[in-house]
């Protein structure tokens, strides 16, 4: 009996190749390709008066230099605004190469192609640009003040303002027995994959065909963009995603200027051209995320039930808006988490600053939303002097309330309706896992040793598997090998493994015989991309459906061949037989032969399919509603997203003298429906938690007032090493299946990072006894906060809220 692979910790098929150094990342491909470098603006805001490239023209080894002047047709237009939204009234995108003006340090101005990167960088150094400086706008406060504008024609620096209302939150708050206000800040961080962006392209003049390999999260997106901008037919462009050294969101944005300039140069020069970003370029010219300023007003009853929640926030989207409003829309909707306030109002302004663009980074706006909501929950608990879990439990959507309609519009333009979940059960699990009820005892013991500890909790709900669709093609070859293609891309999630698990289960073939190809538009031209924890849900479901079609066809042919009823057949180890009998059998490979009626035999196996061997003379060889080949193709397009959920808890110790913050315990409970491969899901959580620790305690993008990014290197941007992450991460799962897809799964990719800012703020606040309202937080900032609050002895039960929260008159 073939054992079911769904749910098993199947080792990854990707590993062997990667462990031997045989991975193929974009910079590894196409030996001998010309290399390129980009002249980037050293100024945050300036008008370009003149560019002089003369000195470059006769540099040895230089093949081409481009500035805006050299771009024509669609290439001379601004880059596409990928996700328009009616509220984005003032959307702006940059040009592939700056035209007249630069709006952030790092914006591309000129592009040089040379024999190698060294020579290209030499040439870049020789280009002279005259600038007329303009005053930069840096930071949300300056953007809001709007004393200076990023774009002359965008008043108030406001790209968009979006408001959503459920009921009448301001009125409900005004009438509520208790009210609080919070002002919160969260700073910038970034995806920072270990491999930066990279693209290599080749023009084949014999076939008039362009091939592009890009380190991207969407090969079909890049393909469409390249075709459109270079004026080619879609059918002339192949985009192939090779191994990708991590994405975490940043590589979903496209087309990057380089993704267009490289193919442009490859066509013009008739030679392969490559661009590989260096680390500094990744910091200053890819994308960041997270920065928001939030103002929250909340009204609640004596039990802490949310009567009205009114959230206003300001989102820094950088100099341009290629990715539309996705991040702030997610913040504004996913903020609600597992809770159901009676009345909710949310309004945000998405603001321009002279900094690099903001596009999704793992979590994509959810960490900010969870931070707002969970800080509010903690503030209510402190105010009412109640246990923090109790306030949360009071506000949970209950298991019998699904599907739960929040009456809001989600990031996909569809209603925000949660499909399933069990938040009370998750809460019980996290309390047990972190030792919630025993914590006061632990605190007392630690205090006796002169040590200060705090416990934090944060809950989240994550919309995963967003549409519109993904597709899959499954082909059983005459050898019995199974070739599967799906269009979305892989950046280390183990898709080859989990997708093969799904196919093996459906086809009853051996796992080893299955090959999965992702992100190759030649194999599957219809696809969206890998983001929003959607790969397993979307492509997993599509692959399951496509494999089911292939199975049905196999059984249909087998039923004919074995003269049996298809319903009585089973497939075990790639062999079809009549269940419970020892009679004749037929292999999947042979069925593949039979599925393709042949005129010519080219080997022993194919003889079985030639015209004098198969078919009935009274019927056409291929039936009217059939096709040759043993294949299945299908698409999965759900009505809406499926909502995963989880809770994290952390125990921290803060050093009474140095304010150093140490993690003593980190616990995660997580519900992503059925787990295809628990080993891979846990790996995703580990990675997310580490990024979350970075984002909460170490990482931030430090811009000075002139718009220079001061820490654009791994020396100064403190990405966690092993020494910064918890020694262990305790994980427990709940499996509430999604009713929306055939496998009952939900996405898991972002879960590890979503609640981090909230959970660390909560734990540090609990340890210190004063509110934590700005994240990330460093030891020196904590030290400074202590000084300001001059807390001699922290009082744990009561959190002082005076500075940031204003309890208004408290009706008896």
């Amino acid at each position, binding site marked *: 009996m073939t054992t079911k692979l769904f749910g098993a*910790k199947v*080792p*990854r098929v*990707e*590993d*062997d190749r*990667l*462990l*031997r*150094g*045989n*991975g*193929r*990342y974009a*910079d*590894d491909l196409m*030996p001998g390709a010309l290399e390129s470098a980009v002249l980037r603006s050293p100024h945050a805001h300036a008008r370009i008066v003149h560019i002089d490239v003369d000195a470059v023209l006769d540099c*040895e080894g230089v093949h081409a230099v481009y500035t805006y002047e050299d771009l024509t047709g669609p290439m001379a237009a601004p880059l596409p605004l990928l996700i328009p939204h009616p509220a984005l009234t003032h959307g702006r995108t940059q040009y592939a190469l700056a035209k007249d003006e630069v709006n952030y340090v790092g914006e591309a101005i000129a592009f040089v192609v040379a024999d*190698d*990167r*060294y020579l290209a960088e030499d040439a870049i150094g020789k280009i002279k640009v005259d600038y007329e400086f303009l005053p930069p706008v840096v930071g949300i406060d300056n953007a809001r003040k709007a004393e200076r504008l990023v774009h002359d024609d965008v008043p108030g620096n406001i790209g968009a303002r979006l408001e959503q209302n459920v009921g009448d939150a301001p009125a409900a708050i005004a009438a509520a027995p208790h009210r609080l206000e919070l002002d919160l800040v969260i700073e910038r961080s970034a995806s*920072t*994959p*270990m*491999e930066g962006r990279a693209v290599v392209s080749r023009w084949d003049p014999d076939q008039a065909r362009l091939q592009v390999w890009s380190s991207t999260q969407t090969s079909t997106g890049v393909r469409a963009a390249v075709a459109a901008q270079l004026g080619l037919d879609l059918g002339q462009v192949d985009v192939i995603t090779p*191994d*990708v*050294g*991590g994405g*975490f969101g940043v590589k979903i944005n496209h087309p990057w200027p380089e993704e267009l300039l490289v193919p442009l140069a490859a066509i013009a020069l008739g030679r392969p051209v490559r661009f590989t970003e*260096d*680390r500094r370029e990744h910091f200053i010219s890819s994308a960041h995320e997270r920065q928001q300023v939030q103002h929250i007003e909340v009204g609640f009853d004596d039990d802490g039930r949310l009567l009205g929640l009114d959230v206003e926030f300001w989102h820094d989207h950088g100099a341009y808006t290629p990715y539309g409003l996705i991040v702030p829309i997610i913040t504004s909707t996913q903020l609600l988490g597992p809770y159901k306030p009676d009345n909710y109002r949310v309004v945000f302004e998405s603001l321009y600053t002279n900094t690099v663009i903001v596009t999704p980074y793992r979590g994509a706006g959810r960490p900010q939303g969870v931070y707002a909501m969970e800080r509010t929950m903690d503030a209510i608990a402190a105010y009412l002097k109640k246990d923090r879990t109790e306030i949360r439990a009071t506000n949970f959507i209950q298991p019998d309330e699904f599907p739960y309609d929040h009456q809001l519009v989600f990031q996909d333009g569809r209603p925000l309706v949660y499909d399933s979940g069990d938040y009370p059960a998750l809460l019980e699990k996290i309390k047990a896992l972190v030792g919630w009820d025993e914590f006061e005892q632990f605190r007392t013991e630690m205090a006796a040793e002169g040590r200060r500890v705090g416990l934090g909790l944060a809950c989240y709900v994550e919309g995963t598997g967003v549409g519109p669709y993904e597709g899959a093609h499954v082909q059983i070859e005459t050898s019995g090998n199974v070739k599967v293609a799906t269009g979305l891309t892989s*950046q*280390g*999630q*183990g898709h080859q493994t989990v997708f093969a698990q799904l196919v093996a289960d459906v086809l009853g073939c051996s796992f080893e015989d299955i090959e999965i190809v992702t992100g190759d538009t030649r194999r599957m031209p219809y696809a969206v991309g890998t983001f929003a924890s959607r790969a397993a849900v979307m492509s997993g479901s599509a692959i399951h459906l496509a494999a089911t079609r292939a199975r049905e066809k196999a059984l249909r042919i087998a039923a004919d061949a074995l003269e049996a009823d298809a319903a009585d057949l089973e497939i075990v180890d790639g062999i079809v037989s009549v269940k419970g009998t020892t009679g004749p059998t037929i292999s999947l490979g042979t069925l593949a032969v039979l599925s393709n009626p042949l005129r010519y035999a080219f080997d022993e196996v194919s003889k079985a399919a030639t015209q004098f061997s198969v078919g009935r003379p009274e019927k056409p060889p291929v039936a009217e509603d059939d096709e040759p080949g043993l294949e299945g193709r299908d698409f999965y397009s759900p009505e809406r997203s499926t909502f995963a959920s989880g809770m994290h808890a952390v125990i921290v110790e803060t050093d009474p003298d140095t304010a150093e913050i140490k993690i003593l315990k980190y616990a995660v409970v997580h519900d992503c429906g059925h787990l295809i491969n628990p*080993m*891979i899901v*846990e*790996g995703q*959580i*580990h*990675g*997310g*938690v*580490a*990024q979350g620790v970075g984002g909460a305690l170490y990482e931030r993008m430090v811009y000075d007032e002139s718009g220079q990014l001061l820490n654009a*290197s*791994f*020396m100064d941007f403190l*990405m966690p*090493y*092993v*020494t910064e*992450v918890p*020694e*262990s*991460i305790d994980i427990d799962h709940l499996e509430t299946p999604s009713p929306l897809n055939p496998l009952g799964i939900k996405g898991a990719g972002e879960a*590890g990072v979503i609640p981090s800012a909230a959970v660390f703020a909560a734990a540090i606040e609990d340890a210190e006894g004063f509110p934590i309202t700005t994240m990330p937080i460093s030891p020196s900032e904590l030290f400074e906060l202590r000084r300001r609050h001059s807390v001699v002895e922290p009082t744990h039960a009561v959190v002082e809220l005076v500075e940031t929260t204003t309890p208004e008159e408290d009706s008896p």
Partner: protein
Amino acid sequence: MSEELHEVRLVVNGATYDVTVPGRRLLSDALRHDLRLTGTHVGCEHGVCGSCTVLVDGTPMRSCLMLAVSAVDAEITTVEGLALADGSLSPVQQAFKDCHGLQCGFCTPGFLTTITAGIRDNPQPTREEAREMIAGNLCRCTGYQNIVKAVERAAELTSAPRRSSSVETPPGEHL
């Protein structure tokens, strides 16, 4: 004015390569682009991430901080040279596979070379020493949890008689 070129003999994974490079060519670029040993990865080019780590006469070195011309006379080992003579994965490589110690695989070659030298010098590391061993390498995917386990597993595989290795043990056991 064209650059001065140097003829350099590099010994990598036991094979000898003669290359002609400018004085400023980084060892990482020479390995990747001149020798086509692209398993060595470049994550920062400023010596912080450790992705480009290779063994130079057995010592882990960041190949992005070395010039190719300064690597003459040295025995260099890259990730491509780690597998055993019979083609099977080395204990460190096998341990990464057993423990799900890699996701995107970009940082992995630097960890593998570093740990190979680490286990050689300290065949029985404690948990603390295992963490210490990898404390100079960045990984953005794994959160290091399973890499630490892989160090311990590699030590186990190295000290255990070879054939009792991982093959029979279900990988789940090590997670």
